[in-house]
């Protein structure tokens, strides 16, 4: 990405220069026209790692449709408990205005007495853009997804629990869960349900094609929960009913090779005509030869 900025550094510097000129007359910086949107969220991923993500986007105060990402802004991520602040890491925003930090599953967090992890994201602020921060508190949940055939019914079983510091599992009382399957370009929701007492069971549809090997990747996810943030879990099952098209290697009008009869007819026509041309030319040579002999004879 950097390289691209450098590639166009002439244009960029030109525009920057232009900005300076206009700045003198109008307002201090471009950013003053924009209201900053600082959004912080956390996703617990399938390998139990945790993604922290900030989206930092400026929205034009006058024209709300005009949104511009803040690029290359340094974001600090903290784990807080009361007055303690533990720095988890730092990341810079991308061209989309996104800063991400991935924490591995063995990461130790400070948790409060109710079992919540307090997370904080912070932008220190510059002369032009004010300081921003955002906090969220989530419980560390474990979501498990199992796909089984029970009495030849394709069934999905979701279990959700939390583990406290001494290792005791507590089933989650209630949480909304979404079941979706992966497709090439997006995920398709197939069911919504509620986890009650740590468990949710669902019947899997029987008519999903899946990929060429009949594999289907199934996701179970909790989205934007006040208690758990975002949690996602996935499993693959060989439950697809993909009908692999038997590839007909037929010669068609639009394929590379033509239908056979076309070659045959064309060959017959061409051979016929060119054979005739050859016959004519050979005879012409015969005529010429005869004439030549005649000339030689008369000269003798």
């Amino acid at each position, binding site marked *: 990405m950097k390289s691209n900025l450098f590639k166009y550094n002439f244009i960029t510097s030109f525009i920057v220069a232009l900005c300076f000129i206009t700045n003198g007359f109008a307002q201090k910086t471009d950013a003053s026209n924009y209201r900053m949107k600082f959004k912080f969220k956390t996703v617990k991923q399938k390998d139990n790692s945790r993604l922290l993500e900030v989206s930092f986007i400026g929205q034009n105060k006058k024209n709300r449709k005009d949104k511009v990402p803040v690029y290359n802004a340094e974001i600090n991520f903290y784990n807080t408990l009361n007055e303690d602040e533990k720095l988890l890491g730092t990341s810079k925003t991308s061209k989309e205005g996104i800063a991400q930090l991935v924490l591995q599953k063995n990461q130790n967090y400070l948790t409060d007495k109710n079992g919540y992890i307090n997370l904080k994201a912070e932008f220190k602020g510059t002369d032009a853009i004010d300081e921003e921060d955002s906090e969220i508190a989530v419980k560390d949940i474990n979501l498990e997804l199992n796909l089984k055939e029970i009495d030849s019914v394709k069934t999905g079983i979701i279990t959700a629990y939390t583990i406290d510091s001494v290792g005791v599992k507590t089933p989650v009382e209630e949480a909304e869960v979404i079941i979706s399957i992966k497709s090439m*370009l997006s995920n398709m929701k197939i069911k919504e349900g509620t986890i009650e007492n740590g468990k949710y069971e669902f019947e899997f549809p029987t008519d999903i094609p899946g990929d060429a090997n009949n594999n289907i990747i199934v996701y179970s996810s909790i989205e934007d929960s006040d208690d758990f943030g975002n949690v996602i879990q996935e499993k693959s099952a060989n439950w697809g009913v993909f009908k692999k098209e038997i590839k007909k290697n037929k010669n068609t009008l639009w394929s590379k090779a033509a239908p056979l009869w076309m070659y045959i007819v064309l060959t017959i026509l061409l051979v016929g005509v060119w054979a005739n041309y050859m016959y004519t030319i050979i005879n012409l040579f015969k005529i010429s030869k005869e004439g030549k002999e005649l000339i030689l004879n008369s000269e003798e």
Partner: protein
Amino acid sequence: MKKQETEKSKTNRRNFLKLGLMSSVTVVAGTSLISNLSSIGEEEKTSGEKVRLLTPDGKMVEVDAENINKYPEALITPAEARKGIPDRKFVMVIDLAKCKNARKCVEGCQKGHNLDYHEEFMKVQLIQNNEESDPYWFPKPCFHCDEPPCVTVCPTGATFKRDDGIVLIDNERCIGCKFCMTSCPYSAREFNWGPKNKFEDKSQPYSPETQVPAAEGTVMKCDFCPDLLRQGKLPYCAQSCPMGVIYFGDKNEDIVTNGEETVRFSELINDRGGYRYLEHLGTKPNVYYLPPVNKQFPLERGFDHDKEILERYKDVPYVQELIKQKKIKL
């Protein structure tokens, strides 16, 4: 024989590496897709050919949109582009009830394919089925037919149909005879009539999958953006439509998406009476239309454009009526 085999395995390995690269890209793109699709999408819509960014010190900078061939190392060469993405069969569904001629699909496509103002792979036409029915906006890409007349008539095989259903053009093979243009009943193809500076831009290698850079004296058309599909992204038009008119997906998976909702293709077609345009011609298009029933917007909403664009529709009787009633100005 042996030599051939080793060569084959070499290219196989290369393809494998390529695919690996692509799929890792897909994962990265995928994670951000879930969370940021809306914000990214809107950002692209508001900008022109460049992306604007704010720097931490409050300055606005413009950088080139990196849409075109973001991963040149994964370039698909003309020879490889003939094969198609394995086990896929791409299909597009256009919901005519939702189209309000915002033209974002056209603009997104033009940006992505480095097209000029009047060069449109996606055209939005105003179609009136009969005198009694109201006209409707009709976005028209290439239909990527299963019996493509354009491919049939091509004398050099410059245009071809791949196993994944996509019909592409290799502009390094095209001799510019324009026979494909006359045989396409949907006027989907464009010709490069004269030299242009952008043809000389060799900063990225040519691929039939991106059609960039275009070449003088050759034909081009909508390509279903296979370069984006390989990255797990929607084609430019579907990405940029604010109304979610354009659904795209793999017919084998039976799943299509417009970026907001993801649905079963067969259900969408069967529940909503999906049809193909000019079905009787027997070209078997891979673009389906959902009829313009319960239209979400009055037709007049589609007239918020340059005069240059609006004048295209002035011959439609309904539009003449609107002009008479002074509902729209031309």
